[in-house]
């Protein structure tokens, strides 16, 4: 059974239907890239997986459990599904270490010592052991994003959602963040990422999902999809990038 199952997901913003019946299953350890033009619904789809966007219709199952709209379900869901945002969204009033420690302490009720140990481990993993006492505004964008990844990992999620995690970064900072994501993928973390980094998607992902006008238009092995797009839309999307 898949780790995450999306079935017939529908979502509208007012009169605008952004998701028109999405079916997608994500296996444990799989790395999936969602690609497509802006407005194709890929970010919205990603945000439905941890309940940041409520769905109008359809079924979301995570780890065999159906997710309803009840708050308790949502909180339980979010313990399984971590998320990293385009704009990092670090808490500016806490240090890097406190950013990572906070949720294990207040949500998982871990002791301070426990939370600190995990936080230090995660910050070391993303290469920021020497920046733990820095506040977000003392860190570069790439460093902030790596703290955000550490913060999500400290909750030990089963799936990590990445919403254009390098789009807000200066070009020279993109690689340090991608290196961390690549490392996670190699360690077997289940990843779902909305990305514009096509080369990265091609190298790292197991499955590519091309979205077009609120539907999954084409899906498959990245190598295959890129070199041999079956639909004119994907063809022009890939062509437009080259």
């Amino acid at each position, binding site marked *: 059974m898949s780790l995450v199952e999306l079935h017939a997901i529908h979502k509208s913003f007012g009169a605008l239907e952004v998701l028109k019946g999405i079916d997608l299953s994500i296996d444990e350890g799989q790395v999936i890239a969602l690609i497509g033009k802006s407005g194709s619904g890929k970010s919205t789809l990603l945000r439905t997986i941890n309940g*940041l966007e409520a769905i109008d219709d359809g079924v979301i199952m995570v780890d065999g459990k159906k997710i309803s709209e009840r708050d308790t379900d949502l909180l339980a869901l979010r313990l399984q599904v971590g998320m990293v945002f385009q704009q990092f*969204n670090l808490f500016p009033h806490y240090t890097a270490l406190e950013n990572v420690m906070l949720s294990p302490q207040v949500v*998982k009720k871990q002791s301070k010592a426990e939370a600190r140990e995990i936080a230090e481990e995660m910050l070391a993993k993303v290469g920021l052991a020497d920046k733990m006492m820095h506040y977000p505004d003392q860190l570069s964008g790439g460093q902030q994003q790596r703290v955000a990844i550490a*913060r*999500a990992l400290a909750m030990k999620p089963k799936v990590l959602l990445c919403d254009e995690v390098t789009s807000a970064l200066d070009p020279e900072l993109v690689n340090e963040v991608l290196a961390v994501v690549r490392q996670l993928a190699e360690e077997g973390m289940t990843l779902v990422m909305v990305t514009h980094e096509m080369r990265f998607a091609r190298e790292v992902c197991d499955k590519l999902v091309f979205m077009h006008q609120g539907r999954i238009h084409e899906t498959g092995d990245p190598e295959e999809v890129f070199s041999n797009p079956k639909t004119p839309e994907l063809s022009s999307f890939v062509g437009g990038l080259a």
Partner: protein
Amino acid sequence: MSEFSLWDIVYNLLLAGRWTVLLSLTAFVLGGIVGLLLLMVRTAGNPWVVRFVRGYVELFQGTPLLMQLFIVFFGLPLIGLDVSPWVAATFGLTLFTSAFLTEIWRGCVESVGKGQWEASASLGMNFTQQMRYIVLPQALRIAIPPTVGFSVQVVKGTAVASIIGFVELTKAGTMITNATYAPFTVYGCVAVMYFLICYPLSLFARHLEGKFRNVAR
């Protein structure tokens, strides 16, 4: 008729001024507590509650404080509650203060970006945890200068309580004037005393504004 020296006037005004300070503090503290509760229930987002709080704020911002005190003072006896001027003034000013503070703080909470709510939600925090650890600490920094600034309005607002017979600074001024027939001297002293209470608060608010400008943490 006995003679009033300037010292007598100042001394009696100082005695009454204690009530102005006490009334201001009480209204400010109680108003702050009520305002915070209104802010919490409003931010939690039930549409009916949001509408109620908005109406509450509009009501108190859209009517003169004097009318609010009259309605409390003359209205409560109609439903069988005979209240002293002190209780009526405290009650009225508390409502007034809570309406303004909740509105000031709402703006501060809203200035904490949506990304902060989403990040904390995606880490599994519930509403109370989000407010306590993420939103309020950031909103508080922004809120301190305007809140201290508003305290000046509360102090000046207490003067209105003189109309319903509560003997604070302004009412004492009126009473002393009636005895001395020296309105200019007496009200001059009254004004100086209000100024001595309010000016440090204004300075403090300005100082905090400078201190918290562009400081995220």
